[in-house]
Structure formats: C-alpha cells, structure tokens
C-alpha cells in the first residue's frame, strides 16, 4: 500500500515538474534565439528557474521515500 502511495506521489510530482521545466526551457530557447548576446544571462536565469521547478519534484521524492520506507498502518 505504501509503495502505491509513493508511486502516485512521484507520478503527479514528476509530471508537474516536467511540464514546468519544459515551458521554461522553450521560452529560454526563444529568448536566446532572439537575443544571442544575452544568452549567458538567460542561461543563468534558466538554471535557477529549472532548479526551482525541479525542487517540487525533489520534495515529493523525499516525501515518497519517507512514505515508502516507513512502516505505515497498512504495511
């Protein structure tokens, strides 16, 4: 039961984080293509934004690990 819960958590979280990073990257590519001289600045912002978008998935990963490894009522 715990593993199913962990699987659902990871499914939803990675879906959201993936969409977030995909939007951010597509916009960054647009911006870098329009203004190649600003590419290094855009890269820094993109890296930071991707880290923030990714962190939701990372939190979910930590929670899923806690749930999967804890005894829990049903395990």
């Amino acid at each position: 039961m715990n593993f199913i819960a962990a699987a659902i958590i990871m499914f939803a979280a990675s879906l959201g984080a993936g969409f977030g990073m995909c939007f951010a990257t597509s916009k960054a590519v647009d911006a870098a293509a329009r203004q190649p001289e600003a590419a290094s600045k855009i890269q820094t912002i993109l890296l930071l934004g991707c880290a923030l978008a990714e962190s939701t998935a990372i939190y979910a990963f930590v929670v899923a690990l806690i749930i999967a490894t804890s005894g829990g009522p049903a395990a």
Partner: protein
Amino acid sequence: MTKTQIIEAAVAAVVLAACLVLYILNAKKPPDENGKKPKGKKFAFLGMLVSGWFLVGLFITVLSGKTGKLHIAFEMFSERVDVFGVSLAKTTLTGAGVLIVLILLLVVLRLTVIRKFSVDEPKGAQLALETVVDFIDNMVRGNIHGYQPKALQPFMLSIALYMFGCALSELFGLRAPTSDLTFTFALGLTTFVSMNVYGIKKNGVGGRLKNMGGAVPAMRPLMIPLKAVSDISIPVSLGARLFGNMLGGMLVMDLLKGVLGGYASGLPAIAGLWFNLAHPGIQIYIFVTLSLTFINEAMELEEA
C-alpha cells in the same frame, strides 16, 4: 565458480581471441582513398574492449565471491556508530573528516603555492585558484546589489568547497554527508542566519521589519507574520532540495551497481563522474545562487 560462470568465461575468451585475430588481420590493411580506417578493425577493437571488460568483471566477481544479484539496501538516515559512548551518524564523521582534509590541503596551499604568487608572471596553480575565486566573486557581485558585505565571498567559497569535498567523498565509497538531512538543513540554517544578520546590520532591526513588511505601511502588521513564515521555510526548502538531489544521485548509482551485479567494474566509474561530480557541481551553483538571492532580498529596502 559455478557452471554458468565457467561457460560465460569460455564464451568471453573465445570472442576475445576471435576479435584479437580479426584486429591483427585488419591492422596491416592500409586506409582507403578517403583516409578512413577499415571497418573490421573498429569492430574488432570494440569487441575486444567489451569481451575484455566482461572477462575482467567476471574475474573480480569470482575473486570477491559476490553474486550478481540485485540487492539494494536503502536507508533514509545514515548508520550510527558509537564514538567514546556517544552515538554519532557515520555521515557526521565523514563530514568532519572532509573538513580536516580540506583544512590541511588549504594550509599546505597557503604555505607552498600562495607564497610563490607573482603579479607579473602568473602560472599554473595561481591561475586555477584565481579562476575559482573570480567565479565566486562575480557571482556575489552579480547577485548582491548595493551594499557588499566583505565576508560574503569567503563564506560562499567555503560552503561551495565543503559541499564539493563532501561530493568527492562519495567517490571513495563513503556515504556523502550531503545525503544526510541534518547536514543539509544545517547548511540551509547558515543561509537563514546570515540573511537576518546582514539585513539587521545594514538597515537595523526596524529596517529589517520594514523590509519584511513591504512597501505599504498599512499592510505591515499583516505582512510581517506571513513573511516570517516564508523566511522560516527557506532553510527547510534549501536543505530538502540538496538532500533530495544528493540522495537521488546516490540511489541511481546504487541501482546501477545492483543491476550490473558483479560486472560493475567499468560503467559505474564513468556514470559516477556525472552523478558524483557534475551533478553536485550544479547543485552547489544553485545553492550558492539561491542563498545570495535570499540574502540580497533581506537587505533590500523599498522606499514607499
């Protein structure tokens, strides 16, 4: 040695011998008119590489007596050991060891390399050190606007060095201290403390409260508690982010070693370069940048 291992070894040896013969036969052929080497040579070399790797892996497996079965022991928190009656996590000891090694290295650097620094003719080690220091310096100057605290660059550089040393300790087969929640939370706490210290140092206690309350004076009683909650969540989020990333890297490496079983002699070393060096490098960059962003935010004072 079991029967299947003998068969595997025999097959690998036959393939190795065949590839060797093919390689020697093809080695004398001259390249064709386009300057390309004969294709058989390339394939023979690849076959030699793969079968040789297989043989060496099998040899190591037989010697170490471990079977190639998938077995992953995962623990959220590190094992504990008794040190003079005090129960300590193993990662704490690793962290202390990393700190000692780093301090010794830096003392040696200070006594040998830095004495030979010259302004006119910078060489090797000096250029490398200057690149690192310059990188952190640019990061701090780029992220902190206005008042520049002098202690911020050494502080961020030492945090980055410590985290890098912790990531390196994983290459020696130890559990990295950064994959322990208490350690990463402590790192996040340093950011929290320096945020408040620098905010109060620059603007005073009243200024820090103004900074937390926002630009509109009437909204401040409502905004300050909300901002306090979001400030307290900063070390939690920094710590959990670092912990999750490092633990994820460690788990991927464990899975890879578990899947490869006894043949884990070549591939994990290459994958480890990414998961133990490049990936922590990105995380260090993000940690330092986010810390600087938060510190800058705490020092800004909006004029109403």
